[in-house]
């Protein structure tokens, strides 16, 4: 995971101001403000139909915004057609020209701008994506991963201010996808151009991007570094969509100190006030969140060994599944049922089997607090969305 955005030198700011898109009654993108730092690798993350592709297409000029403006390098380009914008797109399924060979595909943009001697540049670009020896092949003779690299080369050769990537890895198998993630990251670092990457794959977004904007139902839910989003989600959607979260409804007991004191079922929990994004009022409810891998599991017989000052919840193991590096447990407790716990498979306690009484405990600093007035399930079911289903309205 990369921590902070590293602004490069040759990239340019993209600024979206109040941009929105409606199709009849359907609002694909609600008015949206977004600033992409120069030279950064920016990801728009969300499930199918959340408006991320529409947003990307509005930057490219392939979709006309209903309201708002698009600025590239400080210049308003809202009214410009795609062929007059210094942006290039890597399309989902690549959209390589089937009647042209790889060389001519890559040279296409240069030729359209009237550049005659393209040989050197095309050669260099094909070398960058390691396809120099396939220059005279046709797109259909290449594998998915190779086609993907041609699509990147075809866009990058124009030295656009911004490179837009629309689910570029969606059609690849898992292993190839991992390779291409690193490859794209390498290329981005090498050329220093701003990349805006649209994906539904949260792992992909976190591995590659400096900054991630999580979108849901046409709105940006949260924007930040992958670490930020994962460690301190600000909505239940982000908490559930990025990895897994245990969300416990708790009553606020005390908000006077640096820590907020809460009660869930029969247990008391502490939450650092700085990690609570909602306003906590004594007597009202709050959602307490904790990631499954932050929780330690101790058998009830050894409850005394748990250090003081940790949040602790007692419960009973309902289910366990062994998945190699870790074991995943589902624990029912008075505080909440079906709490997820991931334990590394190191020095496993053989007593931790379904039916065992256990204590769940964790460092309060990992706890996060959310407004209880939202859908606790938001973002959990979207993982089942068809990966390459085309977004509504595109």
């Amino acid at each position, binding site marked *: 995971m990369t921590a902070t955005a590293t602004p490069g030198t040759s990239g340019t700011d993209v600024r979206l101001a109040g941009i929105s898109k409606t199709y009849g009654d359907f609002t694909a993108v609600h008015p949206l403000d977004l600033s992409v730092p120069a030279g950064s690798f920016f990801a728009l993350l969300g499930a199918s139909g959340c408006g991320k592709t529409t947003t990307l297409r509005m930057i490219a000029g392939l979709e006309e915004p209903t309201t708002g403006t698009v600025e590239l390098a400080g210049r308003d380009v809202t009214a410009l057609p795609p*062929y*007059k914008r210094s*942006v290039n797109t890597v399309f989902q*399924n690549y959209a390589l020209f*089937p009647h042209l060979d790889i060389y001519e595909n890559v040279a296409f*943009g240069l030729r*359209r701008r009237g550049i005659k001697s393209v040989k050197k540049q095309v050669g260099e670009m094909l070398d960058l994506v390691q396809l120099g020896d396939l220059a005279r092949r046709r797109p259909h003779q290449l594998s998915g991963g190779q086609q993907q690299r041609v699509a990147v080369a075809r866009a990058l050769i124009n030295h656009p201010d911004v490179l837009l990537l629309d689910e570029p890895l969606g059609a690849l198998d898992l292993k190839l996808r991992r390779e291409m993630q690193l490859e794209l990251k390498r290329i981005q670092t090498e050329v220093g151009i701003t990349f805006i990457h649209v994906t539904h794959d949260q792992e992909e977004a976190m591995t590659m991007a400096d900054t991630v904007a999580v979108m849901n139902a046409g709105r940006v839910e949260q924007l930040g570094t992958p670490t930020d989003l994962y460690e301190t989600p600000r909505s239940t959607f982000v908490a559930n969509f990025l990895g897994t979260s245990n969300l416990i409804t708790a009553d606020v007991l005390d908000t006077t100190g640096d820590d907020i004191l809460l009660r869930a079922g029969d247990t008391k929990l502490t939450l650092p006030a700085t990690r609570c994004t909602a306003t906590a009022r004594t007597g009202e409810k709050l959602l307490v969140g904790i990631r499954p891998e932050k929780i330690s599991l101790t058998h009830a017989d050894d409850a005394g060994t748990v250090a003081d000052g940790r949040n602790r919840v007692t419960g009973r193991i309902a289910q366990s599944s062994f998945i190699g590096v870790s074991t995943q447990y589902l624990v029912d407790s008075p505080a909440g049922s079906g709490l997820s716990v991931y334990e590394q498979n190191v020095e496993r306690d053989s007593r931790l089997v379904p039916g065992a009484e256990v204590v769940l405990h964790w460092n309060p600093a990992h706890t996060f607090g959310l407004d209880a007035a939202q859908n606790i399930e938001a973002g959990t079911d979207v993982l089942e969305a068809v990966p390459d289903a085309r977004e509504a309205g595109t």
Partner: protein
Amino acid sequence: MTAFSALARRLRRNLVVIAGLLTLAFLILPNVVVTVFSFNKPNGRFNYDWQRFSTDAWTDPCGVADLCGSLSLSLRIALWSTIGATVLGTLIAFALARYRFRARSSVGSLIFLPMAMPEVVMAASLATLFLNMGISFGFWTILIAHITFCLSFVVTAVKARVMSMDPRLEQAAQDLYATPLQTFLKVTLPIAAPGIVAGALLSFALSFDDFIITNFNAGSTVTFPMYVWGAAQRGTPVQINVIGTAMFAVAVLCVLAGQLLGRRRKRS
């Protein structure tokens, strides 16, 4: 017995190939006969019995009165109706495949009418139309009639191609700095080309050998198929076989050239 069963097994195993070869023979045999009889030297006016080998007709293909005149007229009509039908048909195909407009689906089905309608009906109705409009029969009425029935074939061929084209290809072209005109010329047209070429070839072949519709709308003008028909009443000059063989050879050469080109492109 074993030899017989071995043979039977072999036959069974190659049944598809054998059936294919027989069908091919069935298709090609008439052409072979035409070719063979183009080297005949008939005794009377009819070229139906083999007499003896001669290249007379090949050395003098225009030796019969009016034959080459009708041939050149047929070629001209075929050429112009191909151009007309291909241009109009391609435009219609794009309109039907790309745009939503009122009565789009009815236009879509009406386009197929000339293909489905019995030729004789279309021939008669066109003739009635021309008569009522007071247009005198000749080159232009034949041309208009041919464009009419060739159109539907071009539309069918091109529309299938345009429908299967990924719309993102054109977006990609625009994204890569191609203006709408450049996008059309450099991406849309080349990708639609196989459909357009197929439609054009079909148009040429259909127009060249059309008899019924032409016969109704030609007046005193005589195209090659009409000439052959007329000649067959009084006698069949060997030159007809020569022209037929030559047309067949040209068609085969075109197909072979296309195949070779395609193969070379695939290999490179």
